[in-house]
């Protein structure tokens, strides 16, 4: 509902909007600035900004001296793996529900969503015990499975709302033109479904990357992703602020970039198509 404003009001609203946005973003900005300071400069009181001594060493240190690359790789494997596995299972389901809906399809979708209402703590103990018996504790495979199941309802819902928008008439038209099933899938459906699948994938990689319950409960060291690593970074007491900030910056940067790319699709995905 954007409307024209007088120049003076426009200046005031612009200033106000920018101030609010900068305040909201400031903690991230401050963390990034801290990650480039020396440890002494990072904890100096009063806080240093222009007088700070800057360095790139924190990033090099974190990357070289801890097991950081392993945590990073674990995050990639778990987030991408659980998302791809979820897509493989969800695409046929969402497809069938969107194009061959039955009487119970709506109820089924609601039931799937309701599984998200189940508190994770309620299933934590059995899952831990089952995982212990199967030898899945502290394995990437175990986390891939759990995060896939956790996000499966969201993946199905998102895909369903995207598939729903592909007009059925297009299929009929293609069929009238003599397209076989294979041609139909390759030339008509796939190009139309791809954008929806891509945004579903992005959003779920973000959700899985940032997951911080199961990753903490089900891992110790071997399979721990970044979220578990940062959570257990022992109280630094001002000694490792710069390094902690560098580790944090590297942990959120990939997702921040992915997120900024996908922000147009984000609202729709996160509200299961209820707000577009």
């Amino acid at each position, binding site marked *: 509902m954007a409307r024209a404003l007088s120049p003076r009001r426009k200046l005031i609203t612009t200033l106000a909007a920018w101030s609010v946005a900068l305040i909201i*973003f400031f903690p991230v900005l401050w*963390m990034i600035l801290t990650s480039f300071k020396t440890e002494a400069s990072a904890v100096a009181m009063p*806080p240093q900004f222009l007088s700070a001594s800057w360095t790139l060493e924190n990033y090099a240190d974190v990357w070289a001296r801890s097991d950081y690359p392993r945590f990073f790789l674990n995050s990639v494997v778990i987030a991408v793996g659980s998302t791809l596995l979820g897509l493989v299972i969800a695409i046929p389901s969402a497809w069938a529900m969107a194009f061959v809906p*039955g009487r119970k399809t709506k109820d089924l979708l609601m039931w799937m969503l309701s*599984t998200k209402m189940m508190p994770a703590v*309620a299933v934590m103990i059995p899952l831990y015990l089952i995982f212990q018996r199967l030898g899945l504790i502290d394995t990437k495979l175990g986390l891939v499975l759990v995060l896939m199941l956790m996000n499966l309802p969201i993946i199905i819902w998102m895909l369903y709302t995207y598939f729903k928008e592909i007009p059925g008439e297009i299929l009929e038209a293609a069929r009238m033109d003599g397209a076989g099933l294979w041609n139909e899938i390759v030339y008509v459906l796939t190009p139309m479904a791809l954008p929806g699948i891509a945004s579903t994938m992005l959003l779920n990689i973000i959700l899985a990357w940032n997951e911080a319950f199961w990753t903490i409960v089900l891992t110790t060291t071997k399979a721990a992703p970044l979220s578990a690593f940062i959570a257990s970074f022992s109280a630094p007491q001002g000694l490792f602020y710069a390094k902690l900030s560098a580790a944090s910056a590297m942990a959120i940067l990939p997702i921040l970039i992915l997120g900024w790319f996908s922000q147009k699709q984000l609202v729709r995905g*996160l509200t299961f198509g209820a707000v577009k």
Partner: protein
Amino acid sequence: MSTHSSRLAARMMVAPSVVLLLIWMIVPLAMTLYYSFRFYRLLSPDRTGWTGFTNYVWFFNSPDFWLALFNTLALVGGVLIITVVLGILIALLIDQPVKGQGFLRILVIAPFFVMPPVAASIWENLFMHPQNGLFAAVAQGFGAQPILFLEQYPMWSVIGIVSWEWLPFATLILLTALQSLSSEQIEAAEMDGASAFARFRYIVLPHMTRAITVVILIQTIFLLGIFGEIFTTTQGGPGSASTTLPYMIFKQAIAAKDIGRAAAGGIIAVILANIVAYFLMRGLGRNLDN
């Protein structure tokens, strides 16, 4: 399109998801229910057996439980109020034709992509820390004593951190809803002499009802399970001051190694989630019908 064979094929395609989600939901829940009536402590493996409702009674008799229940609801309610109210205000502001709106949106949405442990650790160390935090520096600048955020106001601090994480979500969704409002309606009301407040109250707010409902429903699902932020900052303390129900159950399982009690807590959490869901759907459900 729906011949008999295509229906069958459709069922086959839906089946894997349904079966997986059924197993994911029912098997652990049944096991949790079973353990909740058992004596099962990892530290005394010889003693086992049925204990009836003992584990549940322990919860209801524990002052910590009532505090945890209160904290859980305070966290959900507090974050909802803060994010919805501020979200509406910020959405109204950003919706104005300001310079660099695209970049503004990017700045505002950023906290949502910050994983909970990082968000918590930024606030805990760089801002709330009583010696090295930025807030302490500001307090000293005014000649005041630094506030011990996580020691004296642990629950408020956690609510603040979680609100910062979820404010972008609320803002973005409310902004999307706002942008679909036609400007003609507002201009017509303006010409009829409606005040800015009246325009907001009778045109803008009703238009956003559905989006607000969606924000509340979805945030509640996630807020009931908040864990990483508390684990990273206060560990539920000092004492039990910032222990929520999920964190209390986690402590029973991991620290006290009492599987029976933790399981009973898990069942109580399920019941609580259902009660909250019931009231939410009753109160808000009609907003979702088109």
